[in-house]
């Protein structure tokens, strides 16, 4: 009898246990879109929307809710780079648009408002939406009006949203894109710092850096010939004072998107290895990644622990985009150095983004030295100096010596350059790191030492000093040798 009772109890327990277990098992599997569709919501919440590089607070372990998102479209002039402005079309007043954070099973009530001052109709296609046009068919809205539609978030992941009004390419090229995150149940694992970085390419009538209000260039867009490739809508949005920050020992998570319209990003952080990449913003996790591809209209989530202090450069490793078109950002890490992981400042240890010049073979070098016993004329120096400049200096300081705002100082009409010729020669010989102020702007980057002969230095420096409104100093080979020997 006792035995039987016990058996009965045990079996009931077992059945209950099995039932509960199967339930929780099912609950855990949030990638099951069917399951997400049947999730009930409890309560209503206004969505927190943030401008880049910030993201709203994690969903944590909150239940699926009715989430209210109010997004306003603004056509407004903004800064592309110092002295250059552009008429951006924006979701929420920023490029990329406001970051939307949801969890799987949420019922999103989305209101898209088109500001009365705007000239054009717009809509929104959210890649997180399951339905025709990703919402585009239900959100086509004239200026001065608003449209509301609802959708349920079925699949977790990081998704792009963008405008899909004709001509679609132009709306995207003007900045109409952003990211919406759908977190799994319980949220993504907690990390110390989270940021929002989104790449985009821009096509302007004038070339890179041309001043004034630049209009959109349709032909360049069709040809995929971008003037600007930038993070977060403009050159310098993540450099200098705008750099994102972390402390040594913290784990950083970047929500990386690519609005396009045309270019695929080879996203890389100089001096870091991604511990984890949620490839294409989905469930698949790859580990120990150097560079991850972010397709146009796609995203990725990257995570890494920062072990040493310093400035880490975010780039599109299609590298001319980084140094000539603006795709450059900075992560500044503060804290204690760890010499085991990174030995610290060794000049030769610094990453050479532009490589410097290739050293000559010893004998050809000798031959050159032998030829030049007497000093060249200014005209001769200008010719060879220009050749050396275009080979060695051009990539960073640019064709007209204008430099790249926030990254590489100008040589044209440069107060820093003209103030001290010997110092300038010394920089070419020895390289330069650390902060300097040129024409009122602060620069904090690295110039590698240039492996070129004294004569070549004299020629290129003479060329620089006799171009672009500089003080016309004629630098001699002797002068260069003296400075070389003084060190």
């Amino acid at each position, binding site marked *: 009898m006792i035995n039987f009772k016990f058996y009965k109890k045990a079996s009931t327990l077992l059945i209950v246990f099995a039932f509960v277990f199967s339930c929780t098992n099912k609950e855990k599997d949030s990638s099951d879109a069917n399951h997400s569709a049947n999730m009930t919501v409890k309560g209503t919440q206004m969505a927190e929307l943030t401008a880049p590089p910030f993201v709203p607070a994690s969903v944590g372990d909150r239940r699926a809710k009715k989430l209210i998102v109010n997004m306003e479209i603004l056509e407004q002039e903004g800064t592309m780079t110092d002295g250059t402005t552009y008429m951006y079309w924006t979701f929420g007043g920023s490029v990329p648009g406001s970051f939307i954070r949801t969890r799987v099973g949420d019922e999103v009530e989305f209101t898209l408002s088109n500001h*009365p001052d*705007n000239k054009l109709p717009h809509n929104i296609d959210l890649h997180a939406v399951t339905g025709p046009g990703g919402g*585009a068919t239900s959100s*086509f809205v004239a200026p001065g009006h608003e449209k509301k539609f609802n959708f349920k978030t079925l699949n977790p992941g990081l998704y792009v949203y963008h405008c899909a009004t004709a001509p*679609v390419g132009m709306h995207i090229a003007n900045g109409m894109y952003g990211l919406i995150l759908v977190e799994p149940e319980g949220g993504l694992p907690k990390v110390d710092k989270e940021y929002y970085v989104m790449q985009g390419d821009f096509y302007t009538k004038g070339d890179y850096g041309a001043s004034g209000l630049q209009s*959109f260039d349709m032909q360049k867009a*069709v040809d995929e010939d971008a003037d600007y490739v930038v993070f977060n809508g403009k050159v310098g949005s993540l450099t200098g004072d705008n750099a994102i920050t972390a402390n040594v020992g913290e784990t950083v998570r970047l929500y990386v998107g690519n609005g396009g319209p045309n270019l695929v990003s080879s996203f890389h952080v100089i001096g870091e290895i991604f511990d984890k990449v949620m490839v294409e913003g989905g469930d698949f996790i790859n580990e120990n990644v150097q560079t991850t591809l972010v397709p146009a209209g796609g995203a990725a989530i990257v995570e890494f622990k920062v072990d040493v202090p310093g400035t880490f450069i975010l780039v599109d490793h299609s590298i001319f985009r980084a140094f000539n078109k603006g795709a450059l950002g900075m992560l500044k890490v503060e804290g204690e150095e760890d010499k085991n992981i990174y030995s610290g400042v060794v000049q030769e240890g610094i990453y050479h983004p532009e490589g410097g010049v290739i050293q000559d073979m010893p004998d050809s070098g000798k031959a050159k030295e032998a030829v030049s016993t007497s000093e060249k004329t200014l005209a001769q120096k200008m010719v060879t100096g220009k050749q050396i400049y275009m080979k060695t200096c051009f990539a960073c300081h640019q064709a007209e010596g204008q430099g790249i705002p926030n990254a590489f100082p100008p040589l044209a009409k440069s107060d820093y350059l003209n103030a001290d010729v010997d110092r300038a020669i010394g920089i070419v010989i020895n390289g330069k790191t650390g902060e300097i102020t040129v024409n009122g702007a602060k620069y904090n980057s690295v110039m590698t030492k240039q492996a070129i002969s004294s004569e070549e230095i004299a020629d290129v420096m003479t060329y620089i000093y006799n171009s672009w409104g500089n003080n016309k100093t004629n630098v001699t080979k002797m002068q260069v040798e003296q400075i070389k020997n003084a060190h």
Partner: protein
Amino acid sequence: MKTVLRLTICFLIICFTEVNCQSKMVSIKGGSYTPLYGRDSLQVTIEDFQMDVYPITNLEYLEFVIKNPKWQRSQVKKIFADGSYLREWKSDIVIGDSISLNAPITNVSWFAANAYCDCMGKRLPTIDEWEYAAMANETMPDARTLETYNEYILSWYEKPKTFNNEIGSTFKNYWNVYDLHGLVWEWTSDFNSVLVSGESRKDVDNDSNLFCGSGAIGATDLMNYAAFMRYAIRGSLKAKFTMKNLGFRCVKNSIK
């Protein structure tokens, strides 16, 4: 007292303008052309017609609502105009200081624009008529393949607050008509007859003609991007909608 004074001034102005109250029109010589959504085989033929030289101004519209109180802001039936109808005006019959009397009237619905033209013994232009007149630049009746023509139109999208510029502030075209580009959008009688659903990529399947136009490359591609915007804005509208950047002008048939 101040209001009374203002009203009196308003009426005085109206009395003066009464003589010219029928705004000036010019003849547009008919012809045939291929619209954006058409193919070479689908030419549209336009009869001769008369078109207002300028869009209707705030002042002209004020005169209209004084004579026709049912089109005043507080009187208008909600199904004929949305909540933004004449929103910038100070009251039913006072325009307000910040708005130029000679700027084009905007924030009016299709119903209102239609009633206005009707009242003047005119009508709204069809899309085809409007597009036909608007494909001219200063010197050519059809300048659509010119890069400068298209750049001018596209550059307007980047100029803020043009709705408060006065009429006549843009160029006079081949037909002696002003402001078809560069000031405000304009209502047409059949604005919703070319369907742009808002899901423009779907339209690629739905309306292959519209897509064929956009599929062209080179100069015609630019042309279509400029025109595409007009079709997109028309497609986003309903007849009771009003917009800060949307006005109108009238046309009438030529007497044969």
